[in-house]
């Protein structure tokens, strides 16, 4: 019998051996019970370590971690301001604008309010239903003055219900509504943002029972709201973001 190496024994445990190599290791283990016993213990270690630490995946992510931003970017903005306005004014601008809060707090609040108002609606949750998706997207795009897209969330179990036009502090706002098989609803709120175009990180806000992930891309703010677990919502928000920024 060809001797198997220590590395092959470990690879056997970690499930990365080819068929042929597996058979060889298994034959070896039959003939070498002490190695079989050793590998059994190693496999058990794997299982115990996973059951010990996998629960961390289900814990809510602390807000402080979601809010981590690039210090480099802040320094960059500060430097640009100094360059443009002179040292004194630059410092003033840095004090006024270069703060950790670069998003209007009102975006998640407005989105959550709109979610809370329209998502419980049984008969009229939307103005235009998903049957007329093309018309809906065209209409809202025209009113917001940009090309909107209704993200496709069916792979995550959420079908488009439709959408509506709302009014916000910066004018028209688009709201798309989605629903899963159990009737759980999510809304995507898209509104024009004040000021210079900018990009921000994902942020999370808990507005009473409504969880909101929101971000700004260029001139538009996006907020995904729902009364579901934060991790699930984050998962959907990630998909929405990727579809809007292919």
């Amino acid at each position, binding site marked *: 019998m060809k001797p198997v190496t220590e590395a092959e024994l470990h690879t056997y445990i970690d499930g990365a051996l080819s068929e042929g190599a597996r058979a060889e290791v298994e034959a070896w283990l039959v003939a070498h019970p002490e190695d079989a016993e050793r590998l059994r213990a190693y496999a058990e270690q794997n299982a115990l370590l996973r059951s010990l630490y*996998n629960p961390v995946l289900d814990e809510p992510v602390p807000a402080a971690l979601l809010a981590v931003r690039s210090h480099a970017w802040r320094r960059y903005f500060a430097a640009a301001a100094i360059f443009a306005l002179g040292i004194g004014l630059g410092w003033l601008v840095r004090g006024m604008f270069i703060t950790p809060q670069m998003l209007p707090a009102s975006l998640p609040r407005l989105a959550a309010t709109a979610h809370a108002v329209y998502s419980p609606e049984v008969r009229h949750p939307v103005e235009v239903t998903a049957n007329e998706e093309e018309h809906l997207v065209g209409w809202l795009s025209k009113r917001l003055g940009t090309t909107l897209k209704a993200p496709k969330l069916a792979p995550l179990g959420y079908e488009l219900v439709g959408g509506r036009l709302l009014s916000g502090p910066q004018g028209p706002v688009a709201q798309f509504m989605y629903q899963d098989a159990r009737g759980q609803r999510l809304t995507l709120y898209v509104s024009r943002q004040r000021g210079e175009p900018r990009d921000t990180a994902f942020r999370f806000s808990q507005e009473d029972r409504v969880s909101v992930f929101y971000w700004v891309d260029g001139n538009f703010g996006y907020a995904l709201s729902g009364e579901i677990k934060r991790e699930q919502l984050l998962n959907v928000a990630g998909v929405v973001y990727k579809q809007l920024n292919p």
Partner: protein
Amino acid sequence: MDRRLIIEHIPRLRRYARALVGDRYVADDLVQDTLERAWNKFYLWRPGSDLRAWLFTIMHNVFVNQARRRRYEIEQAMEEVPAVSVRATQSEQLELQDVDRVLRSLSPEQREVVLLVAVEQLTYEEVSGALDIPIGTVMSRLSRARERMRQLLGGQTVMPLKVVK
């Protein structure tokens, strides 16, 4: 910005950090430092390459620097870990605690390799890349760590390994 992709990896970074340092708050500090560094160095990440492996590399570097600076690991290892093997037990809860205690008794280098392989299920090549060590070193650390854990756990027999044929 693709930087938001980083956020998807936070739960797994937290899992690894928790297993690596044990304490919840120290672990989240490690994640926070890792995320800050990742943001600042994001331009170094090659789109299309494995973002998770890249983040583990950053976390490894932050961890090594922290350990060097604060000697946290060594102090902890010396204070908390008895160098005797733990009693074999049938109780699942106790067994998990035993595994955790034994995990803490490994050197940080061994613990990183064991966790990346067993919990994060990276391939040996990915571990080699993330920790910037040759694959032979990955294998020898893995082998020693697993054997040490087995010895300390007393090699109790709970579930027999199925051997086909």
